[in-house]
């Protein structure tokens, strides 16, 4: 019955579960996908208020997925939080320019997740 639906995209099970259980504890209903293409298909059919996506993934990586969401007028407004272990400014800048709402450097703690949700107004 939750109104707050989130999509978590990561090829790594432990990461997916970590974010998922965090979001569930905050009252989100969570869907997961293992790569950008799977996520793209799910996002086409369902509505989400928030998306978390890893960058390094096979088949369709996070940036390609992010760009596809931002190109779709019906989905472009969904805030997408990018997750990566890479903290290079040029990569962060690239993600932001494509339209990422936020960029989190892995590994992160539940505190960082709190901050991110607050920043995004959840």
């Amino acid at each position: 019955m939750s109104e707050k639906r989130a999509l978590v995209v990561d090829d790594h099970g432990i990461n997916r579960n970590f974010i998922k259980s965090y979001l569930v504890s905050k009252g989100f209903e969570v869907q997961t996908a293992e790569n950008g293409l799977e996520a793209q298909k799910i996002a086409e059919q369902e509505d989400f208020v928030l998306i978390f996506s890893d960058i390094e993934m096979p088949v369709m990586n996070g940036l390609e997925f992010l760009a596809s969401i931002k190109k779709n007028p019906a989905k472009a407004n969904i805030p997408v939080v990018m997750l990566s272990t890479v903290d290079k400014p040029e990569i962060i800048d690239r993600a932001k320019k494509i339209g990422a709402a936020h960029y989190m450097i892995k590994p992160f703690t539940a505190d960082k997740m709190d901050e991110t949700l607050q920043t995004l107004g959840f």
Partner: protein
Amino acid sequence: MSFSDDEHTADLLEQLEGVEAGLMDYDASLAEGKPDPALVHIIFRHAHNLKSRLSMAGLEGASSLIHTVEERFDNIRSGGGQANRELIDASFTAVDRIRNAVQTGEDCTENNDLIRQLASEAAPAKDAFTAIPFDLEPEWKAALTAPDRETYVFRIEKAVTTDIDKATYESLPIFDTVKEIGRIIAVYPPHEKLNRSREEDLLHILFTTEKTEDDLFFVIFDTLIPLDIERSAKPARESSPIDVAPRPSVQRDIPEDLRALIVEDDFVTRHLEVNILRQYARSQVAVSAPEAREAFRLALEENDPYDLIILDMLLPEGSGSEVLSAIRAMEDDADIRGLDRCKVVIVSNVKDMETVRSTFRDQADAYLVKPVDREEVEKTLKRLGMIH
């Protein structure tokens, strides 16, 4: 939000094994003289995952060690180069140290020497083409390495999981993205040739585009490797301007009796056609509709008309159909009729072919679908009785 230590340790060791297996396979592929770029991606990804896991486990020394490995392989991945022996050996040593740290819980320290060793320069690929793990038609290769090509050539390396189904693999959104910005030259491997002994393999897409690497920064998000002439082992030859139809360079082995005009604005296709026709005809090229009409008029005036015209349908400043009508009109005016008329082979893409055929039934002599290949051209010329 915490996970059991066992789960963490198992995951750490799994990632570590991924790096190690990747290194071993890469080592073997290097020994065979065919370094496999898919393994560079695999090593990178496992190292990448490992880095944050180690940091989470509080093993910062081990994390910085694997971070260096990750960076080295990331550079190789994005540069289209290959790893050298020193890097592989140092990476194996790093894996051993990290495994020890994970198993004992004691972080690795005094890593400076090893990090320095890891940072030693990776050998760049000799020639961007040697990094392509599949054979390219000689004509394509010649066209793509030509010093005067107008388009840029890139290769995309996309990591894919090998359990991907055929339909999904063949309709990945990346193909549409590339088609929007350029032209696909080659795709490898076909679905049935994905290396299923691994979880991941690499899909390679070779394409030409008028866009630069900078333009593509917000379009292509996979590894994008430019195949520019600077990096090719071949010395750059002097380029000739191609905005003006060049005079043919007549060589002794070229038949003197057949004269062809190639009308094509796309550099790669044009180069390919020139190459294919080289042994059969003296060829000249035109890159726009007005240039083609002018070339034909001049040839008639000089009493050395073309025997064959290879005509692209989509041209700058006009269309192939306008050129064809103009040519036939000039022939009518010069009282050139029937079999004496120049043979015109129309080149078009599949989408337009049916319309083209029905529209030009009376005016054209043959049709070719892009991408043009040697076998089809030769078959067509034989059918038209131009070669034997």
